[in-house]
């Protein structure tokens, strides 16, 4: 029962990692941009949620009504104003620019909010649990987080394969110049993809900030978890990303049980093992 509990907690935290990864994977899929600032944008969303909850005296989950559209607008503007200019045949400029953006966000947050740890208070729901079976307990909040993660993945999957916008995303990803020839403004399509990515980032940021303490410096580690979930799951597959997040979460939970110092190490080791044995990931969709 003890180990079942551990694995279940790992699965539920995997939902959060899948949320980190989904936005990252979406951006790479549509425009081949590796967003090094992704983790810092998650932390930025957490701070925006902190300000919203304090200013309006609302719960973190309610603050999403404001934080999600706000992050989407930031995403659209960031892409149109900055990142579109870095895209081209060379992969290096977007890497360098998002790396710089990462540093700017970290230091900006440090300047504004200091290095103190913060947390979003969600109230009694944070500690509520229910008994799944004899000896197995599930937290309400981790469960909500996991269900939301599944909802996001299902939503993105539907959007990509069932809507006109998703068709435009896939076409632009296939061939930018032909996408223009059928009348798609690729700059606008990229900006919409970034808006969508940061909307997901907003949700991830709020759940992160409710679950644990955060400070301006924790972004890069979230980026790594996101990357690892994407790679374990297989590039280009949204459901694979969810599985990747779960594998990472379970590995960390088991590692932490063996020795608290092994939590992160276990996750990285599983990631390396997948990379060594099955470099295309568990559910690859993009070939070549």
């Amino acid at each position, binding site marked *: 029962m003890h180990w079942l509990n551990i694995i279940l907690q790992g699965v539920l935290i995997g939902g959060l990692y899948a949320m980190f990864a989904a936005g990252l994977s979406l951006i790479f899929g549509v425009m081949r941009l590796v967003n090094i600032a992704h983790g810092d944008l998650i932390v930025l969303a957490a701070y925006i949620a902190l300000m919203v909850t304090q200013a309006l005296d609302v719960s973190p989950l309610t603050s999403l009504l404001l934080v999600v559209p706000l992050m989407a607008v930031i995403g659209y503007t960031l892409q149109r104003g900055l990142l579109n200019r870095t895209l081209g045949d060379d992969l290096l400029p977007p890497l360098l620019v998002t790396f710089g953006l990462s540093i700017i966000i970290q230091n900006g947050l440090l300047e504004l909010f200091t290095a103190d740890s913060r947390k979003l208070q969600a109230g009694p729901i944070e500690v509520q649990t229910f008994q799944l079976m004899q000896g197995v307990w599930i937290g309400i909040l981790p469960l909500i987080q996991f269900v939301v993660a599944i909802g996001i993945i299902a939503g993105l999957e539907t959007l990509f394969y069932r809507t*006109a916008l998703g*068709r*435009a995303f*896939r*076409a632009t*990803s*296939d*061939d930018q*110049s*032909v*996408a*223009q*020839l*059928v*009348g*798609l*403004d*690729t700059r606008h399509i990229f900006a919409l993809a970034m808006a969508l990515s940061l909307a997901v980032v907003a949700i991830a940021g709020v759940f992160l900030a409710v679950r644990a303490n955060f400070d301006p410096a924790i972004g890069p580690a979230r980026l790594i978890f996101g990357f690892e979930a994407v790679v374990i799951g297989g590039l280009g597959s949204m459901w694979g990303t969810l599985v990747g997040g779960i594998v990472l979460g379970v590995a960390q939970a088991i590692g932490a049980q063996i020795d608290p110092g092994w939590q992160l190490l276990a996750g990285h080791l599983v990631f390396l093992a997948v990379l060594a044995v099955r470099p295309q990931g568990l559910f690859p969709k993009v070939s070549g």
Partner: protein
Amino acid sequence: MPDAPLLEVKAIDAFYGDFQALFGVSLTVHSGQVITVIGANGAGKSTLLKTIAGLMHPHHGEILFGGSPTTQLPAFEVLHRGVALVPEGRRLFPSLTVEENLLIGGQSRRPGPWTLGRVYELFPVLAERRELPALALSGGQQQMAAIARALMANPVLLLCDEISLGLAPVVVRDIYARMPHIVAEGASLVIVEQDIMQALRAANHVYCLQEGRIALHGPAGELTREAISAAYFGV
């Protein structure tokens, strides 16, 4: 006095980096015309079409479509004005199905005669294979799908780049047999071809490009084969 031209290309120069691909090329298309541009490999035919479609921009010269300049417009805006390009090598979107390729061709929502139903009537084989991934089609079917995708934008001017490339002659004939239907629905055509006989049969007016310059042009019936050979090969 004839009516105002649909498309006027006025003395354009186009470059790939330092390499000049077009030298003062001019071309005029009137409404309802089928223009063919012929020339050897590397003569600048595709460059000319890409420049008209807005994928490239000329360093000098001007392009007027329907009387207004499109010289510096990006390709997606040129499409919205009514100029569609069937690119060389088909270039269907591999991760979209056949039908999705057609739907995305129509996403500009330009009004006109062409709908999903009408392009399936023109190319019935595409209707049978609508659910397949685009690259599961044969070469000829892919070319049909690429033409159908461009038609879905209801173009006033349809640019076709090397439709016959890599296709069996019988398939090429089959595709060219549909062209009169497209013209009958009100589109004008600019067709780029290496296959001179095919080009002469389809066209009202022929332009011959040689090393980036117009070497010869005239009504299709008035050009002798000797003059065309001379302009084509530069002998």
